[in-house]
């Protein structure tokens, strides 16, 4: 585009479910750099119910911090006039607590389950699965549809050419409910029909005039096969066209920017793909937000994205506890706390989602929960990232009784080159080593893996900027966004207490010697600053593998970062924390000390001692 070269300044916002973040980019000399960042609570909810209020508040903070006038009343000044305003304004959004859907299927364990998978894979929270055989009376189903007010409905049922009666009956229930959309009362609720193709005409007749009906391929064309892709695509399209367009204030926001508002996950995905493509490496990215956790992977050019719509650090925090179980959360907590207290704290965060940890204990607890949210989201990703088959999985009738997803994952942790973290709990961790530790504990990378974090959580804004001005996006991304943390070296295989797990030795790009080693169960950091590299030999312990085969030394180049090189001798396959609670806490403290994870007790704090619990 011709104006690309003329753009002198860019303002970009990301309206998250909890916080709206704004960044200001300016052209300084020949390069684009991040100038400042501001944020404010997202204002989709009452009493404001207008996303632009949060955007304006975030922009006002940018104005304050940069000393640059950006607003004329309640309008962003574009194009730049003298030193005021910006040449380009862009925005992404995931506000509104994610996408909330109801799914319908004839048989709960068959088409109902397929519809659920399709919706989950498309990034939705499944509020309820309504099926012909779910035991509820029709009027109860009708009431449920009305009460829940989903953003969208996915209706499936029947194999192609099979009976149409049941799926039509479900359509009649929906028609009878005449459901109103959650956001914006005056528009038709989007409904995707992905059932028996023989029923399309009659479904059109029942729902066509009352809803925004979209018909797509059957998610279960035959009993033994699922075809979720077309339904998922339809969910994404409708989300932008209908749901987001009707979220409070979005219509106004859309008029402020010449570029379509991009969903946050799509923007982050585009940046992850750019890294993988430019560097020719395998990348996993994770973006952990308040309501959802998105995992992206690019392996050998195959891109996959999953959205765990019910794993997040504020709205969905309680669901992390419900899914992971209290024991899995508590295993990362190195202080004594009783279950009742922990449960209450997590629920209180759920009902007051915008609060932040003030004490060290609260921070440790929140980071413990994030480890489990990341772990579960990654598990879901591994199950869904099964290659480009177009069909997610083949299931036989006997498989329908199993919840597990078949198909081989393409995620091979030993072949992973770079793990990138983003989202509040990772980007805003007071110490960068905390972000590294959370990612290592949750993803358990193997062999040699480089780690990076989105410095101030601006991957979404840069993702949308890349669609309009790739140079500016790439420059800011490389210089201001991605913070290289360093790398983690983790041998794989069974190991015994006291046995050497791994050793590295070599020379840095500055010609200095670099060396470090850990025994089984230990962790250590070998300093290697950002901007430096080291040519090293990675020597695994007996029977262990670091990527060159069991017991074989691997030669590699390691790039440094603000954390350095983490040597992780805790073992992989199996990885486990000590069962004995006392021993476990000891180990957690040893690792925290080895990584210098948290400030030492007694550090100066504005919180009076009397107020500590």
């Amino acid at each position, binding site marked *: 585009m011709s104006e690309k070269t003329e753009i002198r300044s860019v303002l970009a916002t990301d309206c998250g*479910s909890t916080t709206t973040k704004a960044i200001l980019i300016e052209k300084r000399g020949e390069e684009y750099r991040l100038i400042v960042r501001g*944020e*404010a*609570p997202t204002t989709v*909810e*009452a*009493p404001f119910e207008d996303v632009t209020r949060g955007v304006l*508040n975030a922009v*006002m*903070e940018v104005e304050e911090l940069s000393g640059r006038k950006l607003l004329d009343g309640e309008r962003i000044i574009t194009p730049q006039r003298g030193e005021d305003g910006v040449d380009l304004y862009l925005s992404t959004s995931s506000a*509104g*607590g*994610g996408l909330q859907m109801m799914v319908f299927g004839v048989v709960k364990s068959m088409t109902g389950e397929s519809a659920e998978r399709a919706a989950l894979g498309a990034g939705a929270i499944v509020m309820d699965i309504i099926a012909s055989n779910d035991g509820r*009376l*029709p009027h109860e189903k*009708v*009431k*449920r549809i*009305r009460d*829940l*007010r989903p953003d969208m409905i996915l209706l499936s049922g029947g194999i192609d050419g*099979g009976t149409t*009666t049941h799926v039509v*009956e479900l359509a*009649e229930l929906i028609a*009878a*409910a*005449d459901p109103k959309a*959650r*956001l914006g009362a005056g528009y038709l609720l989007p409904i995707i029909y992905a059932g028996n193709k023989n029923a399309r005409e009659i479904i059109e007749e029942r729902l066509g005039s009352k809803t925004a009906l979209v018909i797509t391929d059957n998610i279960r064309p035959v009993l033994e096969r699922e075809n979720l892709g077309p339904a998922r695509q339809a969910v994404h399209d409708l989300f932008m066209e209908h749901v987001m367009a009707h979220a409070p204030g979005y219509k106004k926001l859309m008029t402020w920017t010449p570029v379509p508002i991009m969903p946050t996950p799509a923007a982050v995905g585009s940046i992850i793909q750019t890294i993988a493509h430019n560097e020719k490496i395998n990348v996993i990215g994770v973006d952990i937000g308040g309501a959802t956790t998105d995992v992206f992977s690019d392996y050998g050019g195959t891109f996959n994205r999953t959205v765990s719509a019910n794993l997040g650090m504020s709205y*969905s925090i309680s669901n992390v506890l*419900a*899914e992971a179980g209290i024991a899995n959360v508590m295993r990362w907590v190195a202080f004594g706390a009783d*279950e*009742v207290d922990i*449960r*209450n704290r997590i*629920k*209180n*965060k*759920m*009902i*007051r989602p*915008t*609060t*932040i*940890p*003030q*004490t*060290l*204990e*609260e*921070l440790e607890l929140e980071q413990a929960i994030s480890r489990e949210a990341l772990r579960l989201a990654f598990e879901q990703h591994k199950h869904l990232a099964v290659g480009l088959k177009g069909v997610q999985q083949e299931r036989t009738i006997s498989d329908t009784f199993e919840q597990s997803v078949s198909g081989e994952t393409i995620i091979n942790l030993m072949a992973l080159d770079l793990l990138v973290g983003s989202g509040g709990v990772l980007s805003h961790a007071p*110490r960068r080593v905390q972000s590294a530790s959370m990612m290592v504990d949750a993803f358990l990378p193997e062999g040699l893996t480089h780690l990076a974090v989105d410095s101030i959580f601006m991957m979404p804004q840069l993702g949308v900027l890349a669609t309009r001005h790739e140079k500016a996006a790439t420059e800011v991304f490389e210089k201001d966004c991605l913070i290289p943390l360093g790398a983690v070296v983790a041998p794989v295989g069974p190991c015994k207490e006291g046995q050497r797990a791994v050793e590295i030795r070599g020379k840095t790009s500055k010609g200095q010697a670099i060396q470090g080693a850990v025994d089984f169960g230990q962790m250590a950091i070998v300093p290697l600053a950002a901007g430096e590299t080291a040519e090293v030999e990675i020597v695994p312990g007996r029977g262990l593998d670091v990527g060159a085969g069991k017991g074989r030394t691997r030669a590699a180049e390691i790039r440094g970062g603000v954390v350095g090189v983490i040597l992780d001798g805790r073992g992989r396959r199996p990885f486990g924390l000590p069962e004995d609670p006392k021993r476990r806490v000891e180990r957690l403290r040893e690792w925290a000390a080895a990584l210098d994870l948290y400030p030492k007790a007694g*550090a100066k704090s*504005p*919180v*009076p001692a009397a*107020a500590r*619990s």
Partner: protein
Amino acid sequence: MAHAYTPGLRVTDHAVIRRTRRLPLPGTVLVETGKTLTAETPVARTELPGNVQTVNVASLLGVHQSDIADCMIKKEGDPVEAGEVIASTKSFFGLFRAKCTSPTKGSIESISAITGQVLLREPPIPVEVEAYVDGTVVEVLPREGVVMETSGAFVQGIFGIGGETAGVLHRLAESPKDPLTEAAIGPECKGKVVFGGSQVTGKALEKAVKMGARGVIVGGIDDQDLRAFLGYDLGVAITGSEEKGVTLVITEGFGRMAMARRTFDLLCSHEGRKCSINGATQIRAGVMRPEVVIPILGERVAAPASAVSEGLKIGSPVRGIREPYFGRLGTVSGLPPELQLLETEAKVRVLAVRFDGTEEDAILPRANVEMIEG
């Protein structure tokens, strides 16, 4: 400056409250604009299609699916009585060999030659929507329902379970700090909405159900007790459809939390009055909080203030909503503009709060207070 604070929950003695009452399906509106009604008055009625039952006729008769049409005695649309024969097979000699009866009264909805099943539709189910609050009908939504208006006291809770109900307010705790115990709940609670101070236990909730209390309003509850009471762990806060026999409204949060003095005093001042409560909570966009409506009919109150408050100022009353100050009340004593370092080493915008009963200002992240709004 960015308004980095959480808007508070409303607790007021003077409010005008409007609630839309809609049928799940179009039907008949039973009342007129201007009518004064009690909460229990039906305002609209409709008939929902009856439940659908399936009868696997092909399997019961031992015939192929495609042959069931020949076996049907009743046709689509025919009414049937419970126990009435709907299909049968015949022997060569004209004698009945097998027959299939209707499990319910209703009508034949459909006959499928593909599945071999017959769908029976039970008689329509009458459904009514009630007024929910004592008040006046201010608008009729033709065939859909009405808008009710009432004036009086209004309390928003932070979290709840269970749907709409109404009853007389009955106090069960001496002070906002006292827990609502099992022992305090007796037969006199039947049909009432009971309120207590700091915490309700799972056992106390079960006793409230047993004694027939309609609702419980309390400062806090342990999540463990809630989980035991519900029978499952609540993942995402979307509630209101629980049918546990009682509606619960939590005003402060999880754990033992003294009910805000203002809320407690307001409820006390209306003890003996009828109130309507709803536990439905949805903490996402279009946020929905549980509520207590205490109509004071015949008394004119000022129109509701603008819903958008002006933000935090020195002297604004606030409530701490995160440890280590969770649940504590005080007033804003300082709003320093610069970022400050917390114990966690995070640098954030803070504010100073003088908590009730203290002589010293406490420093909190601005995100960790909630305005107390009237």
